[in-house]
């Protein structure tokens, strides 16, 4: 079978979806997908260096820059999931009572309970900053209750669990996360929390050795009805994690 290298973010890997998709890909198009699980920035770097054939990330601005620099020819949206606000069960900030994510963050910003931020420039981190801005806060001015941990989604959740802190996570990572401790899902559902994943094949003109044909094949599969069925059908504890939204070409 052919092998293709795909760099993905930790949040995608942590969701467990890969364990469903990869065997199906192998079966359908006889392709071994080798996943490199790294930070968003590192995934884009691997693509820029031509060390992987394609990337699957969720950080629109960075993706567009990647395409603008001609490292990729286009980005193809595949699916989305959503971000959720996690926090301690007793919810001192009252996030659970909020009616929008902006309100939820306002409550946090005012009460100043422990809050863990990814702090690693990842898609999730960028989203979190954008949400704070939308709620009229500037995270750069926050005091010590706002902890930038500079780590991946799983590590950050571990830290939040240890600190009994609030954190913004993607739903997939949260559902798959084993060390929930005293944490619980407090707020979800605002449209502002949508999290779009996109597939970018590395530009073969820049990197002649990349296996663009395989990347195209993979992209075709990921956007196929078969993928839609698997992605939409993937659940944990009865909850759907991802929504397929690739547009046919």
């Amino acid at each position: 079978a052919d092998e293709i290298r795909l760099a993905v973010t930790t949040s995608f890997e942590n969701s467990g979806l890969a364990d469903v998709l990869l065997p199906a890909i192998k079966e359908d198009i006889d392709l071994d997908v080798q996943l490199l699980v790294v930070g968003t920035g590192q995934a884009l770097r691997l693509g820029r260096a031509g060390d992987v054939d394609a990337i699957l990330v969720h950080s629109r601005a960075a993706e567009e820059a990647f395409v603008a620099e001609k490292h990729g020819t286009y980005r193809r949206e595949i699916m989305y999931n959503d971000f959720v606000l996690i926090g301690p069960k007793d919810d001192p900030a009252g996030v659970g009572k909020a009616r929008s994510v902006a309100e939820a963050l306002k409550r946090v910003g005012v009460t100043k309970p422990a809050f863990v931020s990814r702090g690693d420039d990842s898609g999730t981190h960028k989203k979190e900053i954008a949400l704070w801005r939308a709620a009229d806060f500037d995270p750069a001015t926050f005091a010590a209750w706002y902890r930038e941990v500079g780590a991946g989604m799983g590590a950050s959740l571990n830290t939040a669990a240890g600190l009994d802190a609030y954190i913004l996570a993607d739903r997939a990572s949260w559902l798959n996360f084993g060390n929930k401790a005293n944490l619980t899902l407090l707020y979800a559902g605002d449209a502002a929390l949508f999290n779009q994943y996109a597939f970018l094949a590395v530009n073969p003109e820049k990197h002649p050795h990349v296996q663009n044909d395989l990347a195209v094949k993979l992209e075709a599969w990921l956007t196929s009805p078969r993928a839609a069925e698997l992605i939409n059908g993937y659940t944990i504890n009865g909850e759907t994690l991802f929504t397929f939204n690739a547009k046919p070409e």
Partner: protein
Amino acid sequence: MNDIYEGLVSAFWLVVTFDADLMEISLRSLQVSLTALVIASAIALPLGTFLAIRRFRYRRLVISLLNALMGLPPVVVGLIVYILLSRSGPFGVFGLLFTPTAMIIAQVVIITPLIASITHQAMRELWAEYHDLLISLNTSAWQRIKTLIWDGRRNLLTASLAGFGRAIGEVGAIMIVGGNIDNATRVLTTAIALETGKGDFALALALGFVLIALAIGINICIHWLSRTEREGRW
């Protein structure tokens, strides 16, 4: 390749401009690693020496175990310390998780077997030399250990430096128990891991070069202070 060059350049600028963040995390790195080194040495030097001088039933087993513990995966040490120190763990009440203290504890666990093993090896020769005399003088076990450590202090340098090296370069454990929290528990290695994850390889390398320079500086200082080689044979 370019990244390496850029890394060197930005390392240079970070250092000459006395970058405040860099200073802070460098100092924290040093503080954590040196404290861990002192504590681990205080345990490991006598322990390794004891194993060199004392024959007991399960001695070989203990030594094999110690050697094996040199291979303790830092991530696992980090996890166990995390579990013990977490709120729901037995030592949760002390609130040590995500503090430099927790990082020191993890590093002590990691480097103690290494220092003890090297100490054991270094002390065996000296003990073979001193064995008859110290037995003849009817010394107690503790007196023997003190004598060997003192007269073999130069041989123990490598043990301690190896421990320091492992501590200052370690990232897996302290990431878990320290949390890499900005302005609180971020040290050089966790910062490097962070920048690597961000894809900012040049900055990661710059920090790496600073760390290596720090390690080299400390080693040269120590060698100079102890004059290890100065009095050696020609």
